[in-house]
């Protein structure tokens, strides 16, 4: 794959990135190559269009939302470091997390993984999944056979299930709580080669 020092040398703040994301340098190298193959006109940055060109992503019902999650608020272009940082959330968790009290939460922690998912729902970024936001996502994910009424009800139901403080919306805390029995570490991790 042409993974060598010259590739790595092109990356800014390499050491910092490795430390932050937990990727090994060969991971970084693979990702860097991928980044460039996505970057059609070699601008060194990715825009939404670059992502949308990935053909598999076009059939993903949540594709656009997921792409949006790669772009921090208001930005239209991301550089490699930001790209790697987002992907790093999906790194599997270490078996024995280092028990350093003052170390920051690792980027691939359960909370961070869930946060990514949460942002998928929370489009207005008010820290809550409202009825409407949930409904939209649900509509994307369920087939056409499902009637609006059913959607409505499933939405209501889901919110009730998670809603602890009675505000008819799911805050991140409630979101996390509602999934506490689920093996999120597994469900939101992929093995990077």
């Amino acid at each position, binding site marked *: 794959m042409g993974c060598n020092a010259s590739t790595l040398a092109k990356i800014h703040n390499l050491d910092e990135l490795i430390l932050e994301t937990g990727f090994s340098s060969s991971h970084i190298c693979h990702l860097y190559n991928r980044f460039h193959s996505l970057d059609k006109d070699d601008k060194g940055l990715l825009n939404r269009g670059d992502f949308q060109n990935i053909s598999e992503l076009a059939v993903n019902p949540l594709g656009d939302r997921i792409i949006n999650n790669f772009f921090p608020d208001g930005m239209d272009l991301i550089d490699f470091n930001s790209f790697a940082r987002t992907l790093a959330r999906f790194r599997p968790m270490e078996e024995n997390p280092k028990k350093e009290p003052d170390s920051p939460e690792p980027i691939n922690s359960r909370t961070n993984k869930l946060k990514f*998912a949460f942002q998928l729902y929370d489009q207005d970024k008010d820290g809550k999944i409202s009825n409407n936001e949930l409904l939209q996502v649900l509509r994307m*994910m369920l087939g056409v056979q499902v009637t609006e009424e*059913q959607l*409505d009800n*499933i939405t209501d139901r889901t919110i009730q299930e998670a809603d602890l403080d*009675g505000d*008819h919306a799911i805050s991140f805390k409630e979101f996390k709580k509602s999934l506490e029995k689920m093996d999120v570490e597994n469900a939101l991790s992929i093995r990077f080669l």
Partner: protein
Amino acid sequence: MQCKKLKERVSLLVVVLLLCSSTKAENNINATTHTEGGGGAPPSGFEIVTFNWHHVMSPYIISVWIMVASIAKMVFHMSSKLTTIIPESALLIFLGLLLGGVVWAADHVASYTMKPTLFFFYLLPQIILDAGYFMPNRLFFGNLGAILTYAVIGTVWNAAAVGLSLYGVYLTGLMGDLNVNGVLDFLLFGSLLAAVDPVAVIAVFEEVHVNDVLFIIVFGESLLNDGVTVVLYNVFDSFIAIGGVNVTGVDCVKGVVSFFVVALGGILIGIIFAFLLSYISRFTKRVQIIEPGFVFVISYLAYLTAEMLSLSAILSITFTGVCCQKYVRANLSEESATTVRYMMKLLASGSETIIFMLLGISAVDASIWEWNTAFILLTLLFIAVYRVIGVVTLTWILNRYRVVPLGFIDQVVMSYGGLRGAVAYGLVALLDETQVKEKKLFFSTTIIVIYFTVVLQGCTTKSLVTWLKVKRSEHRDPLISEKLHGRAFDHILSAIEDISGQIGHHYIRDKWENFDKKYISKLLMRKAALKSKDQILDVFHNLNIKDAITYIAEVITHHIEKYKNRVAWGSLAFIKTPSALQLVNVNFNSNKQSEVEAPTSSVLREDASAICLDMQAVELRRKSLRDCEDVYTHHLLQQYLYKPKKQQKYKYSRHKVTSNEDDAQEKEIFEKTMKRRLASFKSTKHGVSQSKKLAKHYKKDPSQKKRSDEMLSNGGQLVFHDPEFSDPEDPCEFDVISNGGSNFIFNVARQALADTCNGLDNPVFIPEEETVTRQALPPWATINDTVVLSQRARVQMPWSPNNFRRLMPLRLSSRSTDSFLLADIPVPEEHPLSFLPEGTAL
């Protein structure tokens, strides 16, 4: 006390069984002598009744054996303690030994042993089919890499290591003089002992309930490694036939090639037959009665075809089951699917029982035993040690590639789960004594190994799992949020893989699902079945029912709380229409010793009107703004008559089928009614105090009280302890006095209660506090109404502005079918919203 009684009962039964079998054995002898001696005497005229024992002997004996095994199983399960301490498989082996002893004592010939043909052709296929058909596919394919590694590499390693080590020890002379052909005999022996046995593994592990991943790895390994063992066995067997010296390098290469041909060929045959089966099941609509038959016949044909082509029959039938399940389940009618399920469990469970019993019986035969202490002990040792080494090494390698590594505890359980069983027995019995001179020794050792692993490891697995605190599997229904978010997570992951350019599980699964949707499903599924049945909808549907049950449970609990000294039996009667009186009786009872009152339909008729409380309330207050909302929701939920086809529950147990689909009409009505009612009461977490208050209202109003008493008073079908009165640690203890189709309800109710045990939000366990500020009293709750709200029904009083939005367009429930009797409920006053206490969340 009970225990003692049980022991007596058991011992009595054993005695009876012994008598039966000894007389049978005698009969057998008599019959033999009769035919020998009586051949010459001509019949002295027409006999009205003749004794034709010989005529029916073989099927008769088979039936008696099956009956004995089934009765034994029944006896074992009379004591819930017995089977938790000693696994059923071990008990059956003991029983077999006992019966074998009796037979032996009677005629000194082991008349009934398990022949390899019997085992491989008639007992094994259904067990494997059952395993394949109920395989949790996603889990299986998700862990396929690990499973294959253990099944292929692990098995080869075990076979080679055990065989070579035994040979090494043999060379030292520790075992004395054995009449063997050299290393090949030991390798053959090693290979037949290498495979972990699916029958034994299922039998032990399904009682233990380890977590899903661990289970699927052990179980999947045991299923797939049979193919490997059989190949190894065949290779070494034919090498021995050729003669050790004549084996050339070409033969070895052929052996390796044959391994792939046999395994992959078996899988291919399985897939072809699965395709055939799925395709046929698409067109069986008009022959519904024989629909289930196709599943069994075609799977069996797959097994036989593979056997005929000397491919791996076990792999073949496994993959038939795994591949066809999706399409067959979608195509078959609900009744047929249930039939298939039960039939499959019946066959598998039955033959498993027989296998273990026969394993016991077959051992009682002096002619097969040959003792060699060193050989036997060393075999046991090597098997255990090499299993551990194999597991640890392979896990170490695998963990470098697994998303979730297998921990130390998992490895311990996996090593410990290396149970040998009937497959090894069948293979050793197949050995040709003219080729393998030490067949007797191998046979004895195999039996010892089987007993050792099944009995000793089987008995201790459970305590080991408890002691090591292995993550257990939780049997609970998924919450809708988990299902929904889980789906979202899948999408996220496959997107992330796409973006990062990885080709991983999710990528493959995504591709496969698309392909399946586009082509395969269209070809193999009925048009009607193709209509998307989404799992999210299923979960939603099930949860609604569960809530409904919780709801009644809570209502009744509070009734009982108030009236426990007076009325002990509670029941709810639901009617669909006033004229057609359909009843579902669900009793949630704290005191089952109380007198049972026979239900009288006239009482029920009145009760029915009284109990349909909330619906009446809804109807009556249709015009108030808030209630419009209720009506709307009510109407909405009526639309759920769209019933997603029931999803099969993946349970490995072959002894229990989760009955989701009791045909009873009660269920139908129950669901519908409950859904309607539930809709008007959204879940809530607080409000115990409120129901207490409501209960007081009951007391104040004699007429209401009377009514509710009546309501509670008819005999029911389903009774379980009120959690408040039973041990709080173990409130999941139920007694079912069931005489009909209410099992379904019971199951769901148990689910609901199981949640309670888990300390979920069921308020029954929340200590009652008079938190007035938290009360969100609905207007109609203050009226002396018969309504006792669901615990959950209180937070989300549906007048919140959020919900108002949905009121447009307003729908009236004039189309509703549930015209309940409304006669005797006073029309309540309208309560304005300002009634609400300050603290209510709006």
